């Protein structure tokens, strides 16, 4: 009896990842059920209702995040930097150059260091003509919507300065796989759920809803390429007197020293008068 051919070794099917949204510390699909394909991967296509849910999550997380000590927020950002270091291989597989991953980690550590120093630099004691102590202190604006530029370094360079001072953010990401991988880093870095919310998809569809949203306090347009759309979003933001960071104002070369502008863009100055005793 002839020997029967041995059954072919079953080929293993690889498990492909769907890149999902990051809202309130969880990774939901879009409520609309929509996806689109980016470089062969399925990516959730965020809708206006996902943006609405993200704002709710950001708003819910904001008081506690702003109330945490500056030192604590710095530690959390430092932790994010550590976790990016651990995911270096994953970022390079996605096409992020090794030098950019280095720069991203350095940028995170740089902002982590600013957490308990920005108040001294952006605030201070004011000399006044009267028997008062007069103190100005920077406070976070609240919920900031960000249209992020592409590249990992660009993304971190707009998110870190907003959150380090106590804002919470809703980010419309340009580079979905990189952004969602960063979200996975954030989810495992002691960043409280809702502090950073990341939506993938077409920002031209979702950004107008965030620009006009009455519960969003700031709008960072760094990633908007079309001047016309940026102007339109700024007009919509004016309806609720949002702080707006125009494209280019936060810097376009992300490898350069960012300066304080990205942080101060979403800070409010509170000034307190206190009577001086004798």
């Amino acid at each position, binding site marked *: 009896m002839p020997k029967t051919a041995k059954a072919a070794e079953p080929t293993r099917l690889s498990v492909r990842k769907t890149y999902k949204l990051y809202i309130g510390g969880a990774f939901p699909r879009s409520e609309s059920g929509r996806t689109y394909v980016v470089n062969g991967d399925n990516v959730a296509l965020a809708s206006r209702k996902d943006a*609405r849910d993200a*704002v709710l999550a950001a708003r819910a997380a904001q008081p506690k995040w702003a109330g945490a000590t500056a030192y604590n927020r710095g530690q959390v950002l430092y932790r994010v930097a550590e976790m990016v270091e651990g995911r270096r291989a994953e970022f390079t597989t996605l096409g992020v150059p090794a030098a950019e991953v280095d720069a991203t980690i350095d940028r995170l550590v740089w902002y982590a260091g600013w957490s308990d120093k920005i108040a001294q630099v952006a605030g201070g004691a004011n000399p006044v003509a009267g028997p008062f102590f007069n103190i100005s202190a920077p406070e976070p604006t609240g919920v900031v919507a960000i249209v992020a530029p592409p590249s990992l370094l660009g993304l971190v360079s707009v998110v870190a300065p907003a959150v380090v001072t106590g804002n919470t953010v809703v980010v419309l990401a340009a580079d979905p796989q990189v952004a969602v991988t960063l979200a996975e880093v954030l989810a495992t870095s002691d960043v409280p759920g809702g502090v950073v919310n990341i939506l993938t998809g077409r920002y031209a569809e979702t950004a107008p*809803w965030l620009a*006009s*949203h*009455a*519960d*969003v306090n700031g709008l960072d347009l760094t990633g908007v390429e079309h001047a016309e759309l940026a102007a339109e979003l700024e007009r*919509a933001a004016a*309806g*609720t007197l949002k702080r707006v960071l125009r494209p280019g104002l936060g810097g376009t070369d992300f490898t350069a020293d960012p300066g304080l502008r990205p942080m101060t863009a979403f800070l409010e100055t509170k000034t307190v008068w206190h009577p001086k005793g004798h």
Partner: protein
Amino acid sequence: MTVTAATGLSDLRSFLHGLPGVDKVGVEARAAALATRSVKTTSKASAIDLAIRMVDLTTLEGADTPGKVRALCAKGIRPDPADPSCPPVAAICVYPAMAPVAAAALAGSGVHLASVATAFPSGQAPLEVRLADTREAVAAGADEIDMVISRGAFLAGDYRRVFEEIVAVKEAAGAAHLKVILETGELATYDNVRRASWLAMLAGADFIKTSTGKVAVNATLPVTLVMLEAVRDFRDRHGRQVGVKPAGGIKTTKDAIKYLVMINETVGDDWLHPDWFRFGASSLLNDLLMQRTKLTTGHYAGPDYFTLD
């Protein structure tokens, strides 16, 4: 069944226990199914306005002050000062001690004044005290009285006593509308909710209300469904229409619309009116106003633009 002074406890009990049992799984599945309806655009706009007109805007805190009650009354009369087309709420609901303040603030506005009475929320006081509480509230200007039943007596099976107490409070309330709070969160089963609903209606309740808002479990969709079926069956048998008021835990427009869908699907149009259905709520109103603003302005609204209660 008509209950008179001659009706014995055993007759009352056999009537209440003779009511068909509630299919727990069925009623929960039905309520969950009705909660999946999508209500959009113009239907949503009219649902929101109807829900605002059905709100019993409530403040029942130990920390209530005359100032807070006056502010609440102003809000109830004109919920959205920026939009005159926004309808007023149905009623303001306060403790009896605050009823005189609210009565003065609401005079001539058309907004009703509801007062909880009868040793709200526990009801654990002598009957005389509870009746005096009721009379005080009516004398202070309340035209709706929200009473609590003695859950202790009900759960002990002393239906006759619960019945007589409701009759006595109804008498003390006089012309004021009587809402009977069953506190369904403490009644343990849907069968008990159905029995308590019938008992309250037989005793003369104008409204049956789910909860005080002071216990762990407040209004839920299935409980309200059981109560809606009870008022429907009661009208079929006795020809008198009784209103329903879920209270506590209804915080969002989405929740409110689920209740409206349920009314429409179970008891029909007759109950889709503030005279026959109310929401006992406080934070719900702001969410309704935010959704209303979203529909009129086309952009999402934020809580910063509405008063804190």
